[in-house]
């Protein structure tokens, strides 16, 4: 028996959301009295280090067919690894790859899936109940997985990693993909690589701005603020729609849903569709010159004021804090 965690990589390096999944998987394994096994594909990283996050063993697949992301092939490989490791639970990060894989594996193995989980399983009364957000963050559901094999995809930023000094044993695993004829070909991968800044779904600190900024030429101070904090920039829907900011920055119902520790919203009124994408943030700061902006109702801290005056002061205050610490 084991808990298997699929650890996804970017350029061979394990993603932060997958490190969280490994740590989460190791906690699930302790609850079940078993071990956590991480599965990594085509990585040249020092995988023994995944022991730091709680994996006792790492299965490493090296296979040219898995060089680009093909969920059909990868799901088959994961199913074989899960089988070989005797996995009772398979954990994914609920990100762009995990969403494709967890659902496929669930249908393939007829194993119950909780997607976007935000808690460890509760095993009371012989159940296996996992909490997730529903209704776009307006409620939680505690979902009981009824099948013997279970699948969980973990919401990024909901389970902070704690690293230790442990190392994991690394073993090669060979997946047989000969029976599958996939017609999918990845032609291009285009990832904006602002150096050292976390991609939005993984970001712990997010600085976001909206139409209140009046034009794309005014984004300099938003970027400066993000830089001082080491935060990722985001924007509201209208701003992405007019083309002031790239679409991959758009957070909200039709954009990306995020749950950072800190979300600073500048010049965003806070329509319900925007809130649906950010209401899981741990702390929300709203800066808006309209005291009636609906966003203040969802905020932890509010500032009524003109962004063009407030933001430079905020940057200075953060700089002072940094200098004193």
């Amino acid at each position, binding site marked *: 028996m084991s808990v298997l965690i699929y650890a996804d990589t970017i350029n061979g390096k394990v993603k932060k959301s997958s490190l969280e999944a490994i740590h989460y998987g190791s906690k699930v394994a302790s609850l079940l009295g078993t071990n956590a096994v991480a599965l990594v594909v085509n990585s040249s990283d020092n995988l023994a280090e995944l022991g730091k996050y709680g994996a006792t063993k790492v299965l490493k697949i090296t296979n040219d067919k898995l060089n680009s992301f093909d969920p059909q092939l990868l799901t088959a490989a994961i199913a074989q690894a899960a089988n070989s490791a005797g996995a009772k639970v398979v954990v994914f990060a609920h990100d*762009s790859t995990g969403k494709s894989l967890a659902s*496929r594996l*669930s249908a393939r193995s007829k194993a119950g899936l909780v997607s976007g989980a935000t808690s460890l399983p509760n095993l009371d009364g012989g159940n296996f109940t996992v909490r997730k957000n529903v209704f*776009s963050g307006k*409620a939680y559901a505690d979902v009981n997985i009824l099948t013997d094999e279970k699948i969980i995809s973990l919401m990024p930023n909901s389970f902070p990693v704690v690293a230790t000094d442990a190392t994991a044993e690394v073993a090669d695993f060979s997946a047989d993909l000969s029976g599958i004829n996939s017609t999918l070909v990845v032609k291009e*991968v285009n990832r904006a690589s602002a150096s050292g800044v976390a991609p939005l779904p993984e970001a712990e600190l997010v600085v976001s701005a909206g139409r209140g900024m009046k034009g794309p030429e005014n984004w300099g101070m938003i970027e400066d603020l993000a830089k001082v904090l080491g935060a990722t920039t985001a924007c509201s829907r209208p701003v992405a729609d007019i083309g002031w900011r790239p679409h991959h920055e758009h957070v909200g119902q039709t954009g990306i849903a995020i749950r950072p520790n800190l979300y600073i919203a500048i010049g965003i009124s806070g329509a319900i569709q925007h809130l649906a994408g950010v209401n899981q943030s741990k702390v929300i700061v709203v800066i808006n010159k309209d005291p009636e902006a609906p966003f203040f109702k969802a905020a932890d801290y509010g500032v009524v004021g003109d962004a063009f005056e407030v933001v430079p002061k905020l940057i200075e*205050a953060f700089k002072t804090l940094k200098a004193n610490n």
Partner: protein
Amino acid sequence: MKILVCISKVPDTTTKISFIDNDTKFNEDKVQFIVNPYDEWYALVRALEITEKQGGTVTIINVGPADNDQIIRKALAIGANDAVRIDGNSNESFYVATQIAEYAKTQGYNIVMTGKETIDYNGAEVGGMIAELMGVPYISHASTLDVEGGKATLKRSIEGGYETVEVTGTFVVSCQKGMAEARIPNMRGIMAARTKPLTVVAPVNAAQLTSVKTFTLPPAKAAVKMVSPDNMTELVNLLHTEAKVI
């Protein structure tokens, strides 16, 4: 070109959420139901654009009881040739996916389209499950889809960017913003929708994999703490010492 568009019935975005039966069931009383926005705005409209340009048919499929006919007719009013309702009564993704996959297998569709997720259960599960059950590729979170000479090209969102993929043969795609612009049904569409074929199909068996034990509403948010725009040092201190997020 034969396209199947999967639609889900969901409560309107602005619905106040509450639960009944000891918090085990969503309270549908006075709730306005709509076609899941991603299914309607992106999947359905893009399917119509493709078939308007190169010919073909668009079929709408929904899994649910007879009450759902109302939202199926609404989708038919936007376009589509016909609709199928699988007469099942479960919200579970695996159940829904099994019904759609079993039906789709017999009909020879080129593309099966869904929205990126539903706005009620937010699972993003059904598309991948259908693809696995049909044994075909799945492209999730696609923001473009173009078909030419039997080959489809799609842009799929990934963290901080996108991937361009090509696929031949039948595939399943989940659609998000960028695919198409929402269409408002016109009077002719609404009239035509009344008489478009809506076939009701009996469900097949599917194992139950999960069950919702309870729903909980989040605790009420504490009142916002207002900080003077002239005192950003105070805001930073609060974030540092009180909220402890920086």
